[in-house]
Structure formats: structure tokens, C-alpha cells
């Protein structure tokens, strides 16, 4: 492969990974924007989401690579899989908030963050103990359509990943900008106390943020399965750390920033893996995290929400 086609191939790969990280980063950013909380449970909501997606697809009789769908059945199955996964993951996020975080609202210090670490650990180990440690085959219902572009290969699933991510992100953007609840959400991110006094139901806003963030993480989990053709209890940690880096890179609390940050991290991972070495990808991404935090803590595009300290 020539350099230019390698570059093109890695761009295709990076955009797919980036779309997944962006979906995951949005959850971090939404919740941090409102609660100033790094939600570690998000790492494994994503992982659980990928299992929910796997089980949903399996419930349609799909398994491994054996059954290929086309046309309307394919669209229907995919729509159903995304809908069920996102609904279930979103509900999981809401339950986590309601049970473990709401009682800690208003308590200063690291208590809430430690709780999210605990929740994350619980999800991680529930899947480990019940499903097992080995990686599971993720059903792939897509026909093996592929196009050759300038020496690089573009597969149908990559196009699908891009389309789905774009639709979801556009939907979120419209929701945050246009809807009444979205406006309440932005107001709460600026100043929860003032928003409450203006009649915003802050509990509902926080619940919505958790639902949306977790639903997007679930979608990310499904995309992970489609992209890598497997899922495992362990996938949340690395993907979560990368997505968090993406959120920081774009300016945590900043919704469009998280999308761009996600794409950037995906491209960095793909190019780094190709041109440097795969095993150092995390070192590179982590170094970016530290450099951004130290030299430009507001991220590339700045933060929308002011500091509440």
C-alpha cells in the first residue's frame, strides 16, 4: 500500500473510532457540565450497552457472522437494536443517578466521584461473574459490501457507523439547543441554583442528562461491537479513558467540543497505531490528556459552563 492509501485507510478507521469516542465523550461532557462530576460509571455503562446490543441482536436469531440480512429486515433489526440498547442503557444511567448519586447531591469532596468508581466496578464485575472473562462474538448482520477508494477499503459498516453517529449527534445538538428541556439543561450547567430559582426542575434536568449520556454510550457500545466484531467485560476501561480525553480535548462541558474531540482522538489512535506502534497508542493519548490539562485546561474550544468554585 502506498503512503497516501495508508493515510486514507487510517482516516476511514479513525473516523469510525472517533465517532464511537464522540458518542461516549458526550456523556462525560453532559454530566460534567451540569454536576462537575467525572462519572466513572459511564465507562462501564458503555460496556454493558455493548452486551445489551449483543443480546438484542441474538434475540433476533443472529449469531456470529452466519446470518446476513439485507433490505428492510436489516434496517428494521438495526433500528430495533439501537432503540432497545439506547433505551436500556439510558434507563441504567437514570437508575445509577437515582440510587447512588442523588443522595450525595450537595456533598462536597470526592464522595460522588468515589461512588461512580464503585458503580463502575460493580457493573464491570457483574458482567465478569455472569458472562465470563472470554471475549464474545458480536453478531454482524451486515452484508459484506465494500468499496475500493484509491487503494483503501471502505466497508458498509463504517458508512453505517458514520451515519448513525451523525444522526445521533445532530439529534442531541437540536435537543440541547431547541427544546425546552435542553434550554433548562444549559441554564443548569451555567448556574444550578439560579436555574432552580427560575423554576427549572434540576432533578429532571440531571436525570435527562444521565439518560441521554448513557443512551449515547449504549449506542457507542453497539458500534464497538459492529466495528470489532466482539465484546468483552474489559472494553469499557480503555475506550472510556480515551473518550474522556476526547471530552477534555474539546473542552469538557462543551457539547460540540466533545464531538470534535472524539473524532480527533479516533484519528490520533488510527494514525498513531499505523505510523508509530499500536502498543503505544494509549501512552500517546494519555500524554495528550496531560498536556491539554496542564497547558490548556479549557480544551481546544473552551468551556461553556463557568467554574462553580
Amino acid at each position, binding site marked *: 500500500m502506498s503512503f497516501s492509501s495508508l493515510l486514507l485507510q487510517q482516516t476511514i478507521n479513525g473516523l469510525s473510532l472517533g465517532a464511537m469516542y464522540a458518542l461516549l465523550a458526550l456523556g462525560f461532557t453532559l454530566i460534567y457540565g451540569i454536576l*462537575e*462530576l*467525572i462519572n466513572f460509571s459511564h465507562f462501564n455503562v458503555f460496556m454493558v450497552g455493548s452486551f445489551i446490543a449483543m443480546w438484542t441482536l441474538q434475540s433476533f436469531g443472529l449469531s456470529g457472522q452466519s446470518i446476513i440480512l439485507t433490505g428492510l429486515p436489516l434496517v428494521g433489526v438495526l433500528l430495533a437494536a439501537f432503540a432497545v440498547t439506547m433505551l436500556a442503557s439510558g434507563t441504567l444511567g437514570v437508575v445509577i443517578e437515582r440510587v*447512588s448519586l442523588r*443522595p*450525595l447531591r450537595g*456533598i462536597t*469532596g*470526592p*464522595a*460522588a*466521584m*468515589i*461512588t461512580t*468508581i*464503585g*458503580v*463502575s*466496578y*460493580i457493573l*464491570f*464485575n*457483574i458482567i*465478569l*461473574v455472569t458472562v465470563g472473562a472470554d471475549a464474545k462474538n458480536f453478531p454482524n448482520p451486515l452484508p459484506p459490501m465494500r468499496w475500493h477508494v484509491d487503494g483503501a477499503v471502505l466497508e458498509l459498516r463504517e458508512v453505517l457507523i458514520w451515519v448513525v453517529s451523525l444522526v445521533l449527534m445532530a439529534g442531541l445538538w437540536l435537543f440541547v439547543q431547541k427544546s425546552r428541556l435542553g434550554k433548562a439543561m444549559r441554564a443548569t450547567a451555567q448556574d444550578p441554583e439560579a436555574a432552580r430559582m427560575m423554576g427549572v426542575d434540576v432533578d429532571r434536568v440531571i436525570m435527562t442528562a444521565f439518560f441521554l449520556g448513557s443512551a449515547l454510550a449504549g449506542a457507542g457500545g453497539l458500534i464497538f461491537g459492529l466495528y470489532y466484531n466482539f465484546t468483552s467485560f474489559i472494553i469499557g*476501561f480503555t475506550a472510556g*479513558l480515551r473518550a*474522556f*480525553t476526547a471530552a*477534555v480535548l474539546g473542552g469538557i462541558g462543551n457539547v460540540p467540543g466533545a464531538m470534535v474531540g472524539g473524532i480527533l482522538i479516533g484519528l490520533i489512535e488510527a494514525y498513531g497505531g499505523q505510523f508509530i506502534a499500536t*502498543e*503505544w497508542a*494509549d*501512552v500517546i493519548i*494519555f500524554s495528550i*490528556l*496531560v498536556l491539554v*490539562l*496542564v497547558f490548556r*485546561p479549557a480544551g481546544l474550544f473552551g468551556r461553556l459552563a463557568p467554574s462553580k468554585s
Partner: protein
Amino acid sequence: MPSVAAAVARPFAAIPEARRKQMGLLLLAAAALLFPLYHNNDADIDSMANAAAYASLALGLNIVVGFTGLLDLGYAAFFAIGAYVYGILSSFQLQPDWSSFWVPFQYLGLVAQMPGESSGFVVHFTLSFWLALPLAALVAAGCGIAFGAPTLRLKGDYLAIVTLGFGEIVPIVVRNWASLTNGAAGLNGVAAPQLFGHSFGVNATPYYYVAILLVGFLVFVSIRLRDSRIGRAWMAIREDEIAAGAMGVNRTRFKLLAFATGAAFAGATGVLYVAKLQTATPDMFGFPVSVMILVMIVFGGIGSVWGAVAGAFFLQLLQSWWLEDLTGWLNSLGRLVGSRWLAHIDLVPSIELIFGFILVFMMLYRRQGLIPAYRPPSALSFEQQHAVVQRGFGELNLPGLGGSARPGVTALGVRGVTVKFGGLVALNGVTLEVPEGAVVAVIGPNGSGKSTLFNVITGLVPADAGSIRFHDDEILGLHDYQILAKGIARTFQNIRLFPNLTVLQNVLVGQHARLRTGALSAVIRPPGTRREEREADAWAMEILAIFGNRLVPRAGQAVSGLSYANRRRTEIARALASRPRLLLLDEPTAGMNPAETLELAEQIKGLKGLGLTVLLIEHKLDVVTTLADTVYVLDHGDVIAKGTPAEVRRNEDVLRAYLGRNAQAAAAGEVGTEHVA
């Protein structure tokens, strides 16, 4: 349950508390030392040795998370660094060719010559275990500083994620740097420690004793540090970073010190751990280990030394003893009742699930942990609560406060200071002078820039232009802690105390810049340090006595439980404890009732009598009138008037700023004695 505990405790109640603690400690030490003798089971002793190693780690993390409030999620990285320092330098991993360079090291017993695989001789590293303990601690501490220096400036929650990343990177580096570490396969043939020519071998008992001694030593170090100037600075940072800086604590330096100390604990423990296992692989130091140590201190009590030890032992033994026992019992029960599920259940793999639940439940229902770091102080007796208020100051003589004020000499000279926040000009070329020994008041409507003026003087806010001279030095551009050391101490408009610390501890933190104790002398506690601590205590009590019997009986109480007025007094006492030459009071009487206001005004007057220079922000004009020699009036960042209280009261600009153009004429005659807020 409390009644049972009380019944058990009753016979011991007569023994004084210090004695009781001593006896408890002695019993614990005896039990720990005798354990391998009365329980001669190698596997169990091994479990105990592991538990002790984890207790050492928990003690180190407790310094970082518990004392200093820095949430470190990658602590196991330092454990790994210590382990690999010893592992590499006492195994056959590295074998450079022999040359005369190595001869001196051979005499020191650090290396040995051995025949190489192909030809000639190569070096075999034979670092002694006992040398490796301090060496690995130093290396880990150095790594802690190198990693902490750029990142410790980050806000708390960012630090958590960065340390998480660091904890992930170190095993990756270990895995990929195979020439140094043998990669994922791990180091092999790490030498067992030797003592007086006897190798420890694979028997658990000697490791157990080393581990127990290490725990004992680290408990001692932790407690000594906690109860010293160092520990107070750490806790001040944890409680309120801004107030800690304003009270003279160099935050970066003390955070780094905490990070390095915690890392050193982990480094030394790594040596012990790898010597005991005689191997080291990258997987022994991953994220689960960092989380496990965090769970231990959360369970035992964040910030509690004995809590960390108890948490570590409990969770380790839960993992290696009790879950196995429970599994065995459930399996027998299953066979007995014919339940296949029960007969084959294995609880041991669910230990991490249990850790997750412990984290969540402790945070939700018992954040202070099993052994809380702070016991609620006993309530004041009825007599103390209802004692007649003594105002203090009568017979007080506070050498070192104020001193000889030279009239006419300028203490503080603010010249043309401008501060802008984006488009807002908070201070516009403000010029202000505070003569020695005077009380100068700054008044002005809300938002006029008074608190910004204080913030720029004390180094919390940078200035865009101007100069601030204190006696003969330019202080603009100095750090907050340096300005305190120069002799300017302040209080805050919305009270920034260290809520979980006692009144006495708060006031002791105020003396931080005047005390010299370093980390080493805090641990060794030489006579000089003991004297310094005694004098610091005495000085703190003397300062508290300024407020009569308001604070003295409450010296041992956490300030979070004090009344509003007493918290204000504590904050003033904390500022005074730093022996300032200039005291900045930001609305000291806000929220006080008229009687309390009058009392405090008298006390401030008393401080002036001692020769202390005071710069005061105050809304209550009667307070200003009684106290101030000179009044500056700020409005929208400009000084609009300056003069004696009487002059200012008649100034038309002032009346307009406070009351508006129309009300000015009507109210002109009455403003003087009213509260203008």
C-alpha cells in the same frame, strides 16, 4: 449494641485515655509478633504478610487521599516502580558486560561477576534487600515528584483522571520495555532477602515479620507527620486550598511532598512484595490494585491512620480467608440439601464486586469509614455553654503582635492598581496608603471592588497595572503564601476556615509560616521541634484568649460546629496567629448582632492598642466611625473619597454612591449612625 460495648468498656473507664491507648497498642503489637508462633500455618502467615503489605500501601495512599485530599487513582504505579527497582537490581534480568567500572560496586556487594553465555564475564546485580527498601522508596518518591510537578496544579477531579492514566501507562511501559523488565512474562529469579547470612527462602514467616515491622514503622511515620506542621498543612490544603495558601502554605510544595511521601511508602512496599513472590509481572500493578487500595482506605476511614490498617487487613483477609471459608460452608450446605447451585458456588471471584459495593455503600451511608479520622468532640458542659462572657484583653500582653508602630511611616502603599476581569474594571488605578499603627477602613457599595482590593493585596488576583509596596518591598507578583510570610494576614468575607479541623488546629495552621519543622524533623521530633510545637500551642492559646472565654473552651472542637460569630472570631485568631504586621479584615462583623459587633470592635481596638496595623472592609458605619483613623470610599473601582470618618460622612459623592442622587438630599442628615448595607 452500644450497651454491650459500654459494659465491656466500663472496667477500663477509670484508666486515663493515653494509658489505655498505650496498653491497646502494646497488646496489638504482642498479638502481631506472636501470631506465627501460636498459629503455625504457612499459608495463613502468608495471607497475613500480604495483608500487612497492603496495609503499608493503604497508609501511603492515606497520606495522599486522606490527609491531602488528592484523589490518586493510579497509586499502584508507584508500587510497581518500587517492585521493579528491586526486581531488576537483584535478578539476572540485566547482564551488561563486565568492565573495571563495576569493580568498586563489586566491593560494595552490589554486583557480582559471573561468566557470560558466550564469552567473557558479565555483571550480575545483587542489590541487598535492605538497601533496596530505602532506595526504591527514593526512586518512587522521585517519580512521584516528576509526575506530580506538572499535574498537581490540576483541579481535584482532573487529577483523578490523570493519575488513572498514569496508573495505566506504567504497566504498559513495563510490558513494552522488555529488555529492562522481561515484558509481560515478568521478572524471574528475584533474590530472596538475606539476614546475617540466612536467606529468607520461601517460608512466609520472615516476610511476615518484615511486613509487620514495615506497617509499624509507617504507622509511626504517618502519625508523627499528621500531628505536625506538615500534616496540618496537608489537611489545610484538603479543607480549603485558597485559605491554606492565604495562611502561608506553599500548596504546590506540600502537595508534592504528600505525593512523594505516599509514593515512597508504595516503593518500599513494592520491594517487600516482589522479594516475597520472587517475581514481578506488569499485571500485578494494574488499575484493580489501585482501586483495592482505595477501597481499603474508604472502608477504614479516609484520613484515619488506624482505619487504613484495619481496612487493609479486613479486606485482604476477607479475600484470602473468609470468602474461601464461606464458599466451603455454602458448598457443604448445598451438598447437604441437594442444591447443585449452592454446592458449586464460588464466592472468591466476586471479591471485586464486593469492593464495588463497599465503595458505594460507604459513600452513601458511612463516609467517615469504620474508624473515623475525626471523633465528634464531647459537648461543652452546661457551665461552659452558659458561662458569663468574658471579653478578654484586660490583662493580655501579646509580645510579637504589632510591636512598635512608628507613626508617619507607611506600612502599605497601593499605587495606581488596576484589575480587569474581561471587560469589567474591578479596580481602576486605586491608590491607598496605610500608615503604621493605624486602622484604615475601606467602604463602598456592593460590587465597588473592596474584596478585589484585598485579593490583589494578598496575591489571589493578579493586577493589570500598578504597584503595592509593603514596608520596603514590592509585593505585587508574589505568591499568596509569600505575602503572608512578609507579614500580611487576612480574613475572608464569606469565612474560609478548615471545617473539619479543630479551632486549635485552625489557629496552628495560621502559624505555618512562622514554624520551621520539616518532614524529617516532624518524624524524628528532636528537642527543637518539640519546643517549637509547645510554643506554637502556647501562642495559639494566647491568641484564642483575646476573645475571652468565647473560643478557649472550644479549642478542641471542629469549627464546622461553631456558631457563626465564633467562626468569624476563629478566622481572625487564625490570621493573628501568623504574627502579622498588617491585618486585613473583610467585613469582620457581618452577620453579628449589635452586642457581638460592639464586642469585636473593642477587640479590634485592643489590637490597634498593641500597635497592629489594620485594613478593614466594613459595611456598618458605626463600626467604621469608632475604629477607623482614615476611611477610603470605593465606587465602581474608583476611590471617590478619602478622609476621617466625619469628613467622609459629609462627602456628597459618597452619599450619592450609597443612596442615589434623589435620596441624597433627604437622607443627608441621618446617614451617620445608620447601618448602610
